[in-house]
């Protein structure tokens, strides 16, 4: 996030840029757009970088303005990301028209391609810094001229010297007035023209009044306006306001750092191999599937693909949550957005752009930041009437004090205008939620909409799905029992010889268990006539005797032949023509740390339940192992939905945790939901959160962080309300001078942003601890 706050573009008369027409070909607009809609109605979704947005009201103006244009299906503006996402129909409008329309509204827009935004950013940063520097330097100088009056009584300084000092202060206030605070004026003016009022209107009025009163006092000390000058106040509060905005921008980019870094980690251009083996750097949009590219150490892979040469280490942490670098050999897959840490390698591209997992993650993040949470909408609604109230109070205060002196009355009004800080109110929610979302991203948790932070902080019940959620998808041999005279290794080796011929998960598990056993590994067993009976088992001939591996019915074992039947396990048997040889007890592997995660949830007074479609005894066993007391087995999806409805009727707020693959409707109907991102296409996981690495031990920390976020939002809102409630009356009764008002407002919005900054780090401890 760069400093786009100090937009200068307002001052220029809006004019359509002829260069924009270049963008009107599909080839060009696809560089910052993507196709949406269906064949009957093809639509284009473009993202634009917006400039000149100051507060929440602005985003509404642009949204409404764009929605009214022909051919525009929808327009969403993110105030905090300074981005607009516009969906439009190529038949009815074109990019240059959209850009010109935004310009007409008093903002400026650019296609959100990476290069341009960076170039703009340098320019903007310089301009912002220069404005701030002018204000600061002139403030100090003006203060010098004002200082004699701080220490002397009226009349102690000769009138002409006094006049000269005022004149000098006036001269050095001019740059502050005309240059540094220009953005306040141009923004206010544009809002007035659009029949809007916004944050900058009171500020601009306050600055204007102060300057007029002081100038009049300088050039006509005996006149109607009085003889007191306020140039020191004027320059000081412009400096304070600009400082606050500058710091805000810095803090904002700090909180959003992780997200920005993730979204923009792929370099814009890549070295592509030519037919003759040389390399040329090309823009990523020119890459296509099948291209061979060279990726240097420290760069991110531009697409999903296959490693063609060499070996390297890659860091996939932001994509999978796996923090240790992974070794990759020739022929292995690398994913877009992961970092190449080891050596320069060549890869063949297989999947590009939006279809990669990385592309989907970026899309989700951008979407989430644009969504407006409920509290934020509430603040926006309050902001407008509040500004009207401020304007009225300013007028009223001036009228009440009019008799005591015109200058004093006007300066009181200016103080009222400057001290108010609706910014703190409208920043309170988005600043905190975005900081928190960025902390989530750092831990491999994606959030679909910011509103989900509020939702997950309210839950009282957690329902887990079993397979893929509490347990890994693969099943494992936990124990085996064998006939007397047969060793475990022999049994495993024989079973494995059969099992390795099948792809069934249980067969894979048996084969895997044999591989893990060195003794069994050492035995070689050759089988003839191996065949699989689907859904029952495997059979073959070993040393001319039939050998079977499979269910009890398939192998023909009877319960009286079995040594130890254990209902906790799913069992398969190994038999030959003499009867039972061995029993393998299989169990789904429960994910690491699951029991601790469940214990942490229960400690936080949350009801934890397990709903599973599996057999009663497996579910009971899993529940016992992870410490869940309430469980329901053999649930059809419908049963799960009904259970959820039942809880809803009791007024419970349910968090549903599922694998996101088979339980879409159930996840969607819960109050809030978490899906496991492993192996599931992200766009299909219909959940509010996606755990990229599928590690459910993140859930307690996630809930805790969401609760902390809500606490901080409440603190922020409370602070904004209290600040305004205390300071406006103070200014109204002329107890605050304009510079104090400026300082108050500047610190007030900074406090909100600083408070939100506390959320950009995740902390691990129990859910209800640390009442911040």
């Amino acid at each position, binding site marked *: 996030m760069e400093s786009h706050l100090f937009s200068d573009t307002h001052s220029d008369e809006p004019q359509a840029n002829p260069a924009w027409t270049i963008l009107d070909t599909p080839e060009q607009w696809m560089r910052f757009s993507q196709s949406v809609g269906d064949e009957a109605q093809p639509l284009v979704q473009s993202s634009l970088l917006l400039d000149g947005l100051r507060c929440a009201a602005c985003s509404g103006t642009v949204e409404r303005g764009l929605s009214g244009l022909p051919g525009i299906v929808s327009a969403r503006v993110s105030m905090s990301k300074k981005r607009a996402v516009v969906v439009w129909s190529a038949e009815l409008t074109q990019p240059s028209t959209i850009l010109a329309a935004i310009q007409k509204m008093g903002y400026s827009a650019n296609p959100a391609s990476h290069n341009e935004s960076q170039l703009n950013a340098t320019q903007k*940063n310089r301009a912002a810094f*220069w404005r701030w*520097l*002018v204000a600061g*330097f002139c403030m100090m*100088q003006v203060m010098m001229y004002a200082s004699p009056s701080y220490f002397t009584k009226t009349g102690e300084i000769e009138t002409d*010297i006094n006049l*000269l000092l005022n004149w000098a202060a006036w001269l*050095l206030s001019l*740059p502050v007035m005309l240059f540094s605070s220009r953005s306040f004026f141009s923004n206010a003016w544009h809002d007035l023209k659009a029949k809007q009022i916004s944050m900058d209107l009171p500020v601009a009025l306050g600055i204007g009044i102060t300057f007029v009163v002081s100038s009049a006092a300088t050039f006509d000390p005996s006149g109607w306006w009085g003889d007191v000058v306020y140039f020191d106040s004027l320059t000081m509060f412009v400096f304070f306001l600009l400082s606050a905005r500058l710091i805000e921008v810095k803090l904002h980019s700090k909180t959003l750092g992780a997200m920005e870094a993730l979204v923009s980690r792929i370099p814009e251009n890549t070295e592509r191999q030519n037919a003759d083996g040389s390399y040329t750097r090309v823009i990523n949009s020119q890459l296509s599937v099948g291209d061979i590219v060279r990726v240097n150490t420290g760069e991110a892979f531009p697409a999903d693909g296959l490693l063609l040469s060499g070996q390297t280490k890659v860091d996939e942490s932001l994509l999978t949550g796996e923090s240790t670098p992974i070794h990759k050999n020739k022929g292995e897959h690398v994913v877009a957005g992961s970092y190449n840490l080891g050596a320069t390698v060549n890869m063949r591209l297989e999947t590009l752009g939006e279809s990669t997992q990385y592309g989907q993650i970026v899309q989700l993040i951008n979407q989430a930041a644009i969504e407006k949470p409920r509290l934020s909408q509430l603040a926006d609604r309050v902001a407008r009437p509040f500004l009207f109230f401020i304007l009225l109070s300013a007028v009223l205060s001036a009228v009440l004090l009019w008799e005591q002196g015109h200058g004093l009355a006007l300066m009181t009004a200016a103080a009222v205008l400057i001290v108010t800080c609706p910014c703190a109110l409208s920043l309170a929610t988005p600043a905190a939620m975005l900081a928190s979302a960025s902390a989530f991203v750092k831990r491999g948790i994606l959030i679909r909409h910011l509103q989900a932070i509020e939702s997950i902080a309210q839950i009282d019940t957690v329902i887990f799905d079993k397979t893929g959620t509490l347990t890994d998808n693969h099943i494992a041999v936990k124990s085996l029992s064998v006939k007397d005279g047969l060793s475990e290794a022999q049994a495993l080796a024989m079973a494995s010889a059969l099992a390795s011929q099948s792809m069934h998960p249980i067969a894979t598990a048996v084969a895997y268990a044999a591989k893990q056993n060195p003794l069994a590994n050492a035995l070689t067993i050759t089988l003839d006539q191996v065949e699989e009976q689907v859904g029952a088992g495997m059979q073959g001939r070993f040393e001319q005797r039939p050998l079977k591996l499979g269910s009890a019915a398939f192998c023909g074992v009877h319960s009286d032949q079995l040594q130890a039947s254990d209902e906790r396990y799913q069992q398969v048997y190994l038999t030959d023509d003499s009867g039972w040889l061995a029993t393998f007890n299989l169990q789904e592997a429960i994910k690491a740390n699951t029991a601790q995660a469940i214990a942490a949830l229960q400690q936080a007074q949350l009801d934890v339940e397990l709903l599973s479609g599996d057999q009663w005894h497996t579910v009971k066993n899993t529940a016992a192992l992870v410490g869940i007391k309430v469980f329901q087995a053999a649930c059809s999806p419908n049963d799960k939905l009904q259970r959820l409805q039942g809880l809803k009727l009791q007024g419970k707020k349910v968090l549903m945790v599922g694998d996101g693959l088979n339980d879409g409707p159930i996840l969607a109907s819960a109050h809030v939901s978490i899906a496991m991102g492993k192996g599931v296409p992200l766009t299909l996981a219909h959940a509010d959160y996606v755990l990229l690495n599928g590690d459910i031990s993140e859930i307690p920390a996630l809930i805790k962080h969401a609760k902390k976020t809500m606490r901080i939002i409440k603190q922020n809102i409370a602070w904004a309300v209290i600040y305004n409630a205390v300071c406006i009356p103070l200014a109204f009764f002329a107890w605050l001078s304009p510079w104090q008002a400026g300082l108050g407002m500047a610190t007030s919005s900074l406090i909100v942003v600083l408070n939100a900054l506390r959320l950009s780090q995740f902390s691990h401890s129990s859910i209800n601890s640390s009442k911040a």
Partner: protein
Amino acid sequence: MDILFVLIPLSVVLALVVLAGLWWAVYRGQFEDIEEEGRRIFEEDKE
């Protein structure tokens, strides 16, 4: 105290000169990378 009639205008002029210097510095990118220049002192001279 008549000298003040010279000194005060002079201070204004000086302030404007300093401002011009600052403008030059900002737009020449002098403030863009503050740390790098400090670090460069410690680097070996390349001959």
